[in-house]
């Protein structure tokens, strides 16, 4: 037993037991908790070296809670990395989620059909390419260098937001937390004293899902704060990437409007006498640069549906709701209208008209669009998988 890492600390706990008995006496506890197990006599030898012991010889009070641990003290159980074939495993290699991982788990995408995602990547690359290749260069000289520079920053923002939304963990919850649950009935919890929610058990992930989490069939994992599974980004939109998804939608609309406006300006300038053109008719301008017209038309074509999407999500953000909750509410409303559901009230979303999560417009926008902890991942796919060193067995 010479390799105990927590020797000094363990001594402290033995010594301090005698003090907590006094506390238990003060608080009415009548149990003798000074239990000695076999094999702990060796710990007594190093006991006086512990710095905190002298301070605890006096009767313990609540103020003594402020004794500071030594700097290298850790109260987490020691973990050892999991290995398979003598190679370190990362968390994503143990994840049952239907996700495709890349760059040792830093890049996450769904294993669903990737064709819509590839199409959207193509569009996001092609429209700026035409804009900068034909419109940007001309406007740099004829109007101002600021026009293509601002367009470049907007485009970079769109690309980064899209990359972050599509390739980051959307908020996947760890599996098997409630694996040995005694029962799997829904559990009722009260939300802000006014609403009751029932937490459902996920049979696939073996966890009681927190409120607003749902299981995504395509990703085969429970996603916290799920909004929807986006086929165009090939990933769920959840707690972690909803802020960057909103940024992506908003900036895409702004950027497309910017492209449209300056494509029109460019076409107009081509009819004038400028550095790149001579005075000509509109048809001549179109013949000289059909790419401007293409950018104008394509940008408007995508601007309209994206503006509707943005408006829909702006409304959801204001009322602190999600797409999935809206669909559920609509389904329940329809069922009620058809008379399939008598009375109502058993569903937390129909008991009253108000959304139980709503906090007021400003707080709703803060919570939905700038979610605290959206950089924090529960699943930590790229981290090296660890297991409790106290448990036996070397494998997974």
């Amino acid at each position, binding site marked *: 037993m010479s390799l*105990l890492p*927590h020797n000094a*600390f*363990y001594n*402290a*706990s033995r*010594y301090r037991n005698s003090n907590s008995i006094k*506390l*238990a006496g*003060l*608080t009415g506890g*009548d*149990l*003798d*908790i*000074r239990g000695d*197990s076999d094999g702990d006599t060796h710990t007594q030898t190093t006991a006086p070296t512990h710095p905190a012991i002298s301070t605890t010889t006096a009767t313990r009070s609540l103020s*003594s*809670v402020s*004794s500071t*641990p030594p700097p290298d*003290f850790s*109260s*987490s159980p*020691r973990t050892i990395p999991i290995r398979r074939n003598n190679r370190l495993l990362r968390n994503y290699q143990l994840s049952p989620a239907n996700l495709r991982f890349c760059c040792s788990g830093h890049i996450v995408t769904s294993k669903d059909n990737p064709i819509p995602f590839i199409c959207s990547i193509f569009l996001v690359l092609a429209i700026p390419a035409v804009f900068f290749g034909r419109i940007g260069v001309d406007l740099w000289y004829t109007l101002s260098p600021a026009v293509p520079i601002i367009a470049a920053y907007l485009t*970079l*923002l769109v690309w980064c937001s899209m990359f972050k939304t599509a390739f980051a963990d959307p908020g996947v919850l*760890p599996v*098997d*937390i*409630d694996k*040995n*649950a*005694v029962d799997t009935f829904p559990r009722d*919890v*009260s939300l*802000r004293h006014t609403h009751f929610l029932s937490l459902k058990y996920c049979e696939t992930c073996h966890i*009681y899902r*927190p*409120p607003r989490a749902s299981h995504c069939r395509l990703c085969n994992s429970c996603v*916290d704060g799920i909004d929807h599974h986006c086929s165009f980004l090939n990933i769920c939109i959840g707690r972690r990437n909803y802020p*960057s998804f909103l*940024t992506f939608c908003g900036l895409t609309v702004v950027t497309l409007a910017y492209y449209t406006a300056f494509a029109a300006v460019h076409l107009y300038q081509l009819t004038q006498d400028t550095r790149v053109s001579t005075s000509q008719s509109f048809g001549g301008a179109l013949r000289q640069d059909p790419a401007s017209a293409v950018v104008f038309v394509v940008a408007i074509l995508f601007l309209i549906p994206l503006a509707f999407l943005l408006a829909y999500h702006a409304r959801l953000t204001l009322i602190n709701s999600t797409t999935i909750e809206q669909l559920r509410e609509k389904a329940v409303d329809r069922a009620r209208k058809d008379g399939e559901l008598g009375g109502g009230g058993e569903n937390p979303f129909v008991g009253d008209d108000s959304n139980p*999560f709503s*906090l007021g417009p400003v707080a709703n926008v*803060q*919570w939905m*669009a*700038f979610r*605290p*902890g*959206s950089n*924090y991942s*529960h699943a930590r796919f790229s981290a090296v998988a660890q*297991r*409790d060193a*106290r*448990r*036996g*067995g070397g494998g997974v």
Partner: protein
Amino acid sequence: MDNSSKQASNFNSSHTSSHSSHSNHSNHSNHSTHSNPPINLKNFGTPQSHRILIDLPRELIRLDRDYRAGEVWQFKSTFPMELEGRIGVDEFKIAVDHINNILLQAFNPWMAVLDHLLDTLSLYTLSWFKQSHFQKHISSLEKSLNHINYSSFNPAGLNILNPQSIAFLYLEIEFY
């Protein structure tokens, strides 16, 4: 550590559920839950008999999430009966309130707005160099848990585990 396998088997056979009526999540064989009576309270109220962080705990007590403050991650500070005789109600409440307070500070909405805006404007490169307000507080939770465990919970034969590994869905207290 010749007794580690013995401890593990003991832990497996005697694991019970506790306050939240749920047991440990990892490495359990499923049949034990179904063949054994699910509620087994024989370990509670007994003195500490295992070594903290060296042996496996005899029980795992889970504190549920508290949704009364909304969606912010908080834990119920109701004193679980299983801890009776080990730790005082006040001491327990101070510890849980301290953890809740750290989480509440981490969820500061204006700091989140600031972090997100700066991160977006810097093309999401700021988060490579700078910890966000949230991450700072979550890492300070580890330090606070060390403090609480060292000064009040470990002397009583208990150890609060960091809830990070279970997505902050429960606050787990090991019972030795």
